[in-house]
């Protein structure tokens, strides 16, 4: 089949950035990486990209296709060719471009290192017998252990675009891989580190990481697990933790969010007073509902009783999320499974009214 691609080329010496189109004859089973190899072998040896295993396990070939971060070795080209589409290939986001499709992963690795990605067993002596860990205990970190550190989640992280120091989805998922490991004995120290300024509470819940991860790690869910573990273990000094706890308090007292009290409960009274001018402006428009009389949900006593009941059933903290993963893993990718929403709609920008989400 004839495959056409447009590739954003970047020459670091001249600083020139150009969109170049290539067309190659490729076998029908070819993936994006195969096509890039053919371009490099037969047309243009100067094209730069990373690759190694070609089987979705080394994590080297992360790049963007039509603005989406993908593993080049995972994307089959046939449906794209059949739809008559010419995809645009560009380097991943949130990392500096070195050349063409190669990004500088140094900031990525420094964040991975920052979460201390090794077991801290808490003992020095080697035991006489090996320590047995039950499969069920390892299942709690199964998803996070699947990470191949390709950077696709980081590429589109909306918080990191705004705060480049944010630890980000890959490092935080790695963080939970150790917090949730029964063999690790440094939970509290780890949680304290991850609750720092650029840690878990920087996540804006845009869910781009879950959407992009080619391995099903679901980094956003890992961040929620870290939040739940932090609150379970009373590492709850950050404004983000206080914000989250206020929703629990609201649900068990009035049922609905106690919206007006959310700012002082999150930021503290002093900061809240500094916001008074802003709040008054909102109040004039009815955007600051008075806390009294409280807006109480009908039958709220059930929600209160439910809170007391579920505490103490052994599903506190991250376990509350892990328990649902068996069911969530059964979801087939809805768009891929539905022929009406198949590749043609994904790659036809006209149908959606044009460009979005990057190059």
């Amino acid at each position: 089949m004839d495959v056409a691609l447009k590739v954003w080329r970047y020459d670091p010496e001249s600083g020139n950035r150009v969109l170049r189109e290539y067309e190659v004859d490729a076998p029908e089973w070819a993936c994006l990486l195969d096509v890039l190899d053919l371009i490099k072998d037969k047309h243009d040896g100067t094209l730069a990209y990373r690759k190694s295993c070609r089987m979705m396990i080394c994590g080297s070939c992360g790049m963007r296709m039509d603005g989406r971060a993908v593993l080049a070795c995972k994307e089959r080209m046939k449906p794209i060719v059949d739809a008559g589409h010419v995809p645009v290939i560009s380097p991943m986001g949130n990392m500096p471009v070195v050349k063409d499709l190669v990004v500088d992963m140094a900031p990525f690795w420094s964040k991975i290192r920052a979460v201390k990605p090794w077991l801290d067993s808490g003992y020095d002596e080697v035991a006489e017998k090996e320590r047995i860990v039950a499969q069920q205990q390892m299942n709690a970190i199964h998803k996070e252990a699947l990470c191949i550190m390709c950077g696709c989640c980081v590429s589109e992280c909306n918080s990191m675009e705004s705060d480049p120091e944010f630890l980000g989805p890959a490092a935080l998922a790695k963080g939970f891989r150790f917090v949730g490991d029964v063999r690790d004995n440094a939970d509290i120290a780890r949680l304290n580190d991850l609750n720092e300024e650029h840690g878990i509470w920087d996540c804006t819940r845009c869910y781009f990481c879950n959407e992009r991860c080619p391995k099903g790690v679901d980094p956003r869910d890992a961040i929620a697990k870290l939040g739940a573990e932090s609150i379970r273990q009373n590492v709850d000094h950050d404004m983000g933790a206080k914000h989250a706890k206020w929703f629990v308090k609201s649900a068990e007292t009035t049922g609905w969010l106690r919206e007006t009290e959310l700012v002082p409960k999150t930021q503290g009274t002093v900061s809240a007073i500094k916001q008074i001018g802003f709040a008054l402006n909102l109040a004039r428009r009815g955007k600051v509902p008075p806390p009294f009389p409280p807006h109480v949900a009908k039958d709220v006593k059930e929600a209160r009783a439910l809170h007391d009941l579920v505490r103490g059933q052994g599903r506190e903290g991250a376990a509350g999320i892990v328990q649902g993963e068996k069911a969530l893993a059964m979801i087939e990718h809805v768009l891929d499974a539905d022929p009406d929403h198949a590749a043609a709609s994904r790659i036809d920008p006209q149908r959606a009214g044009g460009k979005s989400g990057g190059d």
Partner: protein
Amino acid sequence: MATKVAYYKGCLASLSAKELDTSTQALAPKLGLELDELESVTCCGAGDIHEAEPDYYLHLNARILAYAEQTGAETLMTICNVCTLNLRQANWTLKNDDELRARVSANLQTVGAPPYEGTVEVKHLLWLIAEGEGFDRLKEVAHKGLKGLKVAPFYGCQILRPSKILGFEDPDRPWSLEAIIEACGGEPIDYPAKIKCCGFPIIQAREETALGELIQPIEQAKEAGADVIVTPCPLCHLSLDAWQSKLKKATGKDFQMPILHLSQLIGVAAGLEESELKFKRHVVSVDAVVEKLEA
């Protein structure tokens, strides 16, 4: 014939975004939707309870689903992205794990709530209007039109991603808002940040980071010539509308970009009254939009 749906309005439409509730209630019958409003329900947790006490999150959402099931309706209609994701995530989990649903249902019954059998589908108002019967009716309902008003669709995150839980449309090339804008006689404006985050979940704990996100859709929509932004999410609405003044303070840029709820945009085209649209509750004035439509 009208289709009965269980209506879950969520926290904001009950409080700071009442205009979303009144416009939705006024519009729904015109679109063939009979709303059975749920009363014995609570907050979905907004992602915060999922992050603070996830097992409690699952139970609160199961309780909402159980009360929706009791109405006999097949669909639980939401009007907020965050409610949509929280409820759909819980619903999928409960529907596909009999053991977990049995435990949660037993807990619900212990506190006097109905058990959840797993028969409800959670759908956002946007999805009910964007295709099928809702879309057919929309063209008749929007009789006043939008006179070529340039409308920038802003989807927000949690109606698109994660697509395996939401799944209505391609999360990278969504089309539903554009289709509705066109059907109402407006001109959809395209810009890259329409599928990105408005920053709302961290706007109190990390204001600077959130404002760095918030400015993107507003600035891009303005540069693309939009008269107004429309969003299906009241949390996006609150940050886009109310926090614009903070953007002005932080960057010196005074965008004055009016922000409409989805039900208000269609409502204008359908000729709803100000008492139902409640534009006076907006922080950024909607007057310029109204004038353009009345001209």
